[in-house]
């Protein structure tokens, strides 16, 4: 399931709901991303995330489809917030259920790398020093390149 929403979410409740749907799978890996209290320009006041409704959800669905081609996963959940988000608040949650833990770990890791660099979101940091649009760091592009070589498949 893919959910892009302005509403805050509670990661524990989401994990519970997800794992209750997946009694037959042995492994569930989750990634929770939270807004860090420091921005590039100083103490963060808020993060603002834009998306392109419809296009963003489809870009995430494409990433999920790639992961499903590559690993044996039975279920996934991706929640991504948009709008204004306060420091310390959850911004993204990825949950993957699989029979075996290797598949769940790799798929969750892959989904996060691609969400960072290929899903249609635009992120602005608002700090005491002003506003700044954030683009992926070189490390984020390096992370996603890892999956384009065969050794991690």
């Amino acid at each position, binding site marked *: 399931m893919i959910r892009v929403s302005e509403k805050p979410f509670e990661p524990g409740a989401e994990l519970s709901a997800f794992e209750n749907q997946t009694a037959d799978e042995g492994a569930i890996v989750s990634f929770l991303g939270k807004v860090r209290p420091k921005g590039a320009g100083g103490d963060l006041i808020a993060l603002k995330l834009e998306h392109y409704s419809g296009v963003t959800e489809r870009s995430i669905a494409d990433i999920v489809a790639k992961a499903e081609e590559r690993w044996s996963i039975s279920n996934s959940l991706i929640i991504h917030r948009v709008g204004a988000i306060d420091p310390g608040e959850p911004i993204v949650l990825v949950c993957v259920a699989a029979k075996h833990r290797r598949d769940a770990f790799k798929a969750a890791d892959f989904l996060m790398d691609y969400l960072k660099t290929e899903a249609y979101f635009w992120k602005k940091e608002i700090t005491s020093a002003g506003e700044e649009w954030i683009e*992926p760091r070189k490390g984020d592009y390096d992370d996603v390149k890892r999956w384009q070589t065969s050794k991690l498949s």
Partner: protein
Amino acid sequence: MTRLLYFGKLADIAGGRMREIPAPDHVETISDLIAHIGEADAVLAAALADETVRYAVNEEIVSREAAISNTDEVAFLPPVSGG
């Protein structure tokens, strides 16, 4: 009317997230559209033509040479940053 959508930093440069413009007949592709925008705002046109920018017509990602018509929604998408 062609509806233009600007995302992220491109909205700041354009001074808004949405514009509706009547595109002249010689505007047949996104490249043509950027050139047309450049007649009024060269800075914005340069930003829209940057190699990191992607384009969507009616919510489908397309190349800069994709054909557009006068009733399309054209979106300009700068580098993304999710997660």
